[in-house]
């Protein structure tokens, strides 16, 4: 005997409400969301703090990396540069390089070292230490004053002091081969949100994936992801034609997933010829 109460079962049905009600409520939701983003409390200028000013791909073999990224992303390297531990990429919007010497503190090879821009490096290193991280002494390099740091979860990064009028990189890249998005997988994204929020004044909001947080402010755009990635930092590179780019990755000895549509473009998850993971994005 079936339970007569099961006749009450009411599957979900879609019913459009009165259009005037729907429009009024949409306005209320939009307004409430806008109130939740306190843009007025932080002047736009302050957001250069924490911008990525330089980054370094740390890999087992710089020579193989040059071949791969030249073929896949069209990177050009400093003229007359001898093959060695370091190679600087020329002509991209965000300066970057490749390094196969001893990895920086807190970076596992293959991995990416992010160099964040700050206005006052002495103040920032003090903040790093007060937040439970470590910071080496600021020292002069040809391109500026830098300090090697670890966050409170042991992830390595560097700080570079730049004057307030130094140019910013594009938010999502501008040229093919540019870095268009940076994902930081720090272990615990809530802790990272607090650490980097206190250090750089970043705010972050939940992102499109579970455990993901979208950081507001820095350029290039940065997301925090709590998932257990093999790499603490994963870069997305801008490409014109993702189908062709995926073919180039495979030809050059890497792997690439079939391109998939996302809300912001089409992406493919890749590895290079030395097991470095990265993403291609046709945005």
């Amino acid at each position, binding site marked *: *005997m079936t339970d*007569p*109460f*099961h*006749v*009450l*079962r*009411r599957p*979900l*049905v*879609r*019913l*459009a*409400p*009165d259009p005037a*009600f*729907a429009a009024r*409520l*949409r306005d*209320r*939701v*939009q307004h*409430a*969301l*806008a109130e*939740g*983003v306190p843009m007025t409390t932080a002047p736009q200028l302050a957001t250069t703090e924490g911008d990525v000013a330089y980054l370094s791909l740390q890999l087992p073999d710089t020579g193989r990396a040059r071949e791969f990224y030249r073929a896949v992303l069209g990177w050009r390297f400093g003229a007359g540069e001898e093959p060695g531990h370091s190679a600087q990429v020329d002509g991209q919007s965000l300066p970057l390089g490749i390094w196969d010497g001893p990895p920086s503190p807190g970076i596992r090879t293959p991995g990416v070292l992010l160099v964040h821009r700050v206005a006052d490096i002495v103040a920032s290193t003090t903040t790093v230490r007060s937040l439970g991280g470590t910071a080496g002494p600021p020292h002069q390099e040809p391109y500026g004053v830098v300090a090697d740091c670890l966050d409170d979860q042991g992830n390595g990064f560097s700080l570079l002091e730049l004057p307030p009028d130094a140019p910013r990189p*594009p*938010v*999502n*890249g*501008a040229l093919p081969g540019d870095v*268009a*998005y940076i994902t930081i997988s720090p272990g615990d994204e809530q802790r990272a949100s607090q650490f980097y929020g206190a250090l750089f004044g970043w705010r972050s*909001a*939940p*992102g*499109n994936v*579970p455990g993901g*947080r*979208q950081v507001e402010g820095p350029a290039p*755009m940065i997301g925090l992801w709590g998932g257990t990635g093999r790499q603490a930092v994963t870069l997305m590179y*801008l490409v014109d034609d993702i189908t062709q780019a995926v073919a180039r990755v495979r030809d050059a000895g890497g792997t690439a997933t079939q391109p998939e549509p*996302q*809300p*912001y*473009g089409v992406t493919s998850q890749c590895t290079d010829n030395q097991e470095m993971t990265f993403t291609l994005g046709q*945005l």
Partner: protein
Amino acid sequence: MSELLRAGRDEPDLLALYDRALPDVYGYLLSRCGSTAVAEDLTAETFLAAVTAVRAGTAVLSVAWLIGIARHKLIDHWRARSREQRHLETAYDAPATVEDPWDERLDALRAQQTLDLLAPQHRSVLTLRYLDDLPVPQVAAELGRTRHATEALIVRARAAFRRAYEGSSGGDD
């Protein structure tokens, strides 16, 4: 290009979800509360609670998540009505520990009208258990009761429903 990536971020996402999920949320609520005015109020409360969750970093941004919020709002609504009508409930809450088998084939429309006659707490538990088809442990969690108390409440609610249903069939009263 930056606009494209920004469009994938969270605040615009809730608005996009609003456009997609409004009929789901409203349809869920209207088919359970039976009143356009109440369904509109609870729909608004649902989406404003979703905004709060986005700010707090606890949003999941799916239709199922919104329906879950709507369900809480519906139960809160009946709970508030229950407080207003406490004197009525005690009459409905006569012990009904033994349930006679009841194999009548219920008429769906009359069953819905019967629900409207019930005390709010009986209506809540029957809605969760039968209209939403939730298992008893989840009903208990939604209502903040123990499983045992929930089972007892379901028995009382079924008895009250049956009295009201049979009472509504026998002519004038």
